[in-house]
């Protein structure tokens, strides 16, 4: 399964890469902002995306809206410091499948990923 990590912090992408690796996902591509993510998606669609909110060039919420214009099924998890209820609601309305607030533990992020893929799989087979 190909997973794309979209975050302007290389440190966070490395931490997320380690979490994914522990869960058995090693086919990982990275992008530092929304613009780069869209370019990477054109090269090959990932099957799961972890997306930060605050990024340069194109932020995460804009990226989510752009993805959902053409793709309703790819599982998207917002991983962000934006913790207010209004932000969570905004992200869900935009089309994210799950929401993980930074700081996160390895366990909490892993749980969000498993939960999201479980839900996505269930929806696809329903």
């Amino acid at each position: 399964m190909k997973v794309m990590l979209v975050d302007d912090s290389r440190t966070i992408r490395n931490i997320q890469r380690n979490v994914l690796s522990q869960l058995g996902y090693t086919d990982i591509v990275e992008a530092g902002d929304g613009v780069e993510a869209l370019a990477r998606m054109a090269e090959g669609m990932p099957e799961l995306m972890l997306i930060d909110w605050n990024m340069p060039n194109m932020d995460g919420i804009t990226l989510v809206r752009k993805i959902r214009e053409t793709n309703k099924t790819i599982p998207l998890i917002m991983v962000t410091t934006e913790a207010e209820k209004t932000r969570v609601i905004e992200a869900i309305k935009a089309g994210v499948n799950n929401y993980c607030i930074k700081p996160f533990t390895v366990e909490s992020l892993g749980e969000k990923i498993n939960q999201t893929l479980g839900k996505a799989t269930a929806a696809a087979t329903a």
Partner: protein
Amino acid sequence: METISVDVRFINPFIRSVHNVFKTMCRLEPRVGKPYVKVSEEPYADVSGVIGFSGDASGSIVLTFMFDAASKIATAFAGVPITPEHRDFADAIGELANMVAGNAKKEFGEGLSISISLPNVIVGSHHAISPSKSHSIIIVPCETDMGSFNVEVSMVMEKKSVAAKAQPVGAAV
């Protein structure tokens, strides 16, 4: 001794956020000292992670470190050795500042619209952050097993929160 009023709405959320971020991401338990008002360029720093706030509350938060503590804490955060020469050194410090700011922001009060900036990181031996002429900087000193750092908070409420009530406390300077 002069006494000034410090609004705990801006300080306590940062203290709680520092605890949460450092415990969760670095497995460190910061010991927080008594906050005080910055009256000169001191304390100096080698590394500063800066986040700006805008909207219904505006200002900034700066996490300041000396190189040794910054390197050890960045290493604990990233899970790999991060020296000041490492390409991810500034990135790690900036992301820590980002997490502390973002976590504190949610406690400022429901109904407030506040945005945070992308992190800026200043790296330079013994640099100074001067207090603003218009707004006080409150320094929250923090100690960890990997070294000390300061949280420098300078915030102004532009709009009254419906949920939060002002609880001013006296701070001696």
